[in-house]
């Protein structure tokens, strides 16, 4: 990595003593930070420590209770969205903030036109501008499809393109890589290096610590709304960042329970086929087993999961649960058969954002909480909610808080809780710890181990190799819609997984 700029450089943007409360929750307590041109500044910290809130204050989306944002030496007690954009601040929001009803090209170009205070809109000029940035990133985005129809990864790429299309001086990326795999991340990083050379200041938020260390020159670590430490990236490693974040040591050791070799498989998938998505997929999972499924983006891993869950049923092939053939044509079929699915795109598929955490947790399992007279067993519902709320360490004042007010990582935990509450026979999780901080990852994997120990068959779809290593009995590698490798026992190491994925 290039050496960081000298201290004499004036910061492009600085924040001073920012405090922000939401009702009784203190999201930020006197945070200060400065961004230098030509530097990537990483923000790290547990879920709910205030990273996104700080970013929203810088971009004028939230008002701070006190403190100021200083741009080019001019202090603003509060920004607004327009003034932030016109002073050259661009943000890739954690939830993307795209327009589902507009095309990719329009989404990419529109904010630049707004910032330019244009009165007229020249539809003809939109495509070339969008094309330029998509080509620079060497992406394969269909500029004319509507964003609402895209996969999560393509939505994320669109959000990235939108921020890069501006001649911005400060680019803030709030977990820009959650849905991306190595190739796209590598391309994004190449562009980041180019921007840095041009003197742009960048902020990068990610829970993938390898990425943090690879891309940044400076690291600031937050905990509970305060900055705990800040320094050169070269002075940190994965372990020390995790320790500063959580206050305790990082545990990533492999821990898998012994399986009962004689037990009949819980789930058998046999010759599943969906033309254009996957071909001849067969595998089985035993009770208590955690099966990992990995592969590149577009390899078909998500489609296989969605076929099992009935969201996009397979064209041919059979699925058996506990030896009984399950004819899965729709999501209700799958739920009836005892299959649960934690989707990839949680914010749009999994949650009622305006409802409370409690309501969301039991939303899928009311039928499991009936008493003898088919009424709702309130006491048991309360127990389930309280149990999952504390097991998953959801960071909120109480389970009555609306999901909309949660941080990104905590909203994901609510989706997990919702599916765990249904106690399915087979639970398929697509990226269960995406966007979850390193400290809590271990806790979530532990929860999955416990669920497996109760006899659940669990499928974890992920491209986070250390996570697969830590909890999976076996790992399937999917490429071009086919299962190409099956790893088990000592073969399950991060190196072998990476190798097989690329092969």
């Amino acid at each position, binding site marked *: 990595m290039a050496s960081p700029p000298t201290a004499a450089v004036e910061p492009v943007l600085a924040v001073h003593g920012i405090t922000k409360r939401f009702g009784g929750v203190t999201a930020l307590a006197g945070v200060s930070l400065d961004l230098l041109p030509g530097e990537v500044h990483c923000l790290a910290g547990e879920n709910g420590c205030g990273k996104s809130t700080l970013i929203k204050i810088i*971009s004028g*989306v939230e008002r701070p209770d006190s403190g100021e944002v200083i741009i080019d030496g001019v202090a603003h007690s509060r920004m607004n*969205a*327009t003034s932030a*954009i*016109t002073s050259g601040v661009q*943000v890739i*929001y954690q939830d993307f*903030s*795209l*327009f*589902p*009803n*507009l095309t990719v090209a*329009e989404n990419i170009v*529109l*904010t630049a*036109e*707004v*910032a330019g205070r*244009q*009165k*007229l*809109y*020249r*539809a003809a000029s939109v495509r070339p501008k969008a094309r330029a940035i998509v080509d620079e990133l060497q992406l*394969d985005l269909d500029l004319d499809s509507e964003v*609402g*129809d895209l*996969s999560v990864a393509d939505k994320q790429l669109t959000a990235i393109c939108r921020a890069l299309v501006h001649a911005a001086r400060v680019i803030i990326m709030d977990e820009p890589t959650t849905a991306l795999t*190595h*190739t796209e991340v590598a391309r994004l990083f190449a562009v980041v290096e180019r921007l840095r050379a041009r003197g742009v200041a960048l902020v990068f938020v990610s829970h993938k610590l390898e990425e943090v260390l690879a891309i940044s020159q400076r690291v600031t670590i937050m905990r509970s709304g305060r900055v705990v430490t800040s320094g050169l990236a070269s002075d940190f490693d994965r372990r020390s960042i995790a320790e500063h974040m959580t206050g305790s040591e990082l545990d990533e050791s492999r821990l898998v329970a012994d399986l009962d070799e004689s037990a009949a498989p819980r789930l058998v998938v046999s010759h599943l086929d*969906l033309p*254009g*998505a*996957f071909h001849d997929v067969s595998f089985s999972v035993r009770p208590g087993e955690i099966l990992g499924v990995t592969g*590149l*983006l*577009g*390899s*078909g891993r998500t*489609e296989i999961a969605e076929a099992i869950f009935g*969201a*996009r049923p397979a064209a041919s092939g059979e699925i058996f649960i506990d030896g009984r053939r399950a004819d899965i044509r729709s999501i209700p079929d799958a739920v009836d058969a005892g299959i649960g699915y934690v989707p990839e795109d949680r914010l749009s598929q999994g949650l009622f954002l305006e409802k409370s955490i409690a309501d969301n947790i039991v939303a899928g399992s009311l039928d499991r909480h009936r008493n003898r007279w088919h009424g709702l067993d309130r006491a048991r519902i309360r127990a389930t909610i309280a149990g999952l709320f504390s097991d998953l360490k959801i960071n909120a004042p109480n389970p009555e808080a609306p999901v909309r007010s949660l941080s990104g990582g905590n909203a994901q935990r609510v989706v997990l809780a919702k599916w765990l509450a249904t106690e399915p026979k087979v639970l398929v999780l697509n990226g269960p710890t995406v966007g979850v901080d390193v400290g809590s990852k271990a806790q979530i994997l532990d929860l999955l181990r416990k669920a497996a120990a109760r006899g659940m068959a669990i499928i974890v779809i992920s491209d986070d190799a250390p996570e697969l290593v830590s909890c999976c009995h076996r790992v399937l590698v999917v*490429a*071009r*819609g086919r299962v190409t490798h099956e790893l088990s026992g000592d073969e399950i190491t991060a190196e072998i997984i990476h190798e097989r*994925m*690329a*092969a």
Partner: protein
Amino acid sequence: MQMLRTLRGSNNEGVLALVLLTLIIAMSIISPAFLSAGTAFSTLRSATVPLIFALAVLVVIVSGGIDVSFAAVAIFSAYTAVSFAITTAPDLPAFAIIGFAIAIGAVLGLFNGVVIARFRLPTLIVTLGTQGVFVGVMYTYVGATYYAQLPPSLASLSSVTVIDFATGTGRASLHVMAVVAIGLSLIIWWMLTRTMFGRALYAIGGDAEAARRAGFRVMRTQVLVYVLVGVLAAIAGVAHMVMGRSANPQDLVGDELDIIAAVVLGGASIFGGRGSVLGTVLGVILIQVINNSLLLAGVPSAWLRAAVGMLLIAGVGIQAIAARKKARRVHTVDEQKADRVVEEVAS
């Protein structure tokens, strides 16, 4: 496939055009008199006021709201302007009366907009409320007299036609107000597709929070939308009186459903962010043609309302089914693309 996509249009305009065409052909076969310039012009004439209303409704629906007070605004502003002219200034020129009506419409729209944007209330509830308020205020403070005669300047507009010729069966003429409606359609089309204000409407209708973060001035735009609705409604109100040659304070209110049905049928999404002028025009004409042909076929008018209601349900139903289909569409794996990615990772 691509050509089919283009022909169908982004809001199913193609399908609608096809339905319309089929209906016209069917009607012409049943009664040959149907297919004539006279019918075309008279359909346009009866579609004039609904079309102007529909443009107003389209604009709010695209921005993610709904307005059911437009008819009340129309009658309030047009009736107030006309009765002012009749009672106190009979010599007022037509443009001044129309200008006065537009100003009143804009103020009423501003009231809607401010209440909705400032207090973040649901648009349906607010406009249902203001609809009652506007009508009540008009009866109490302006009056409820029926004027059988318009002020002279407006009355002279009533007989202005742009095209006028004799046909075998009678005269065919295009009323000046129909031309106004066509002009307004072009203006709204231009605004929605070629201006940043138009883009702001689609953006806000798609995701208001994302629009705010992108730097759109959401509140200001929302207020302007309702002002625009007020202005269009006032024009529609005046057009209605000019074409009917009288001012009746009990007109218009109560027919809101027809208009909303036409707009939804024209492909505008009730959830916001979708809709086009072309679709709206086709929707309005389709409903007019259906009404005309049912009348021609001797169907009692009570059934017309049922027909419109059914069309509304069909329109919304088609949207819902299309949305569900979309959600189930397979994101197919492009084999070549997958190969390329794999090669790059390997290298």
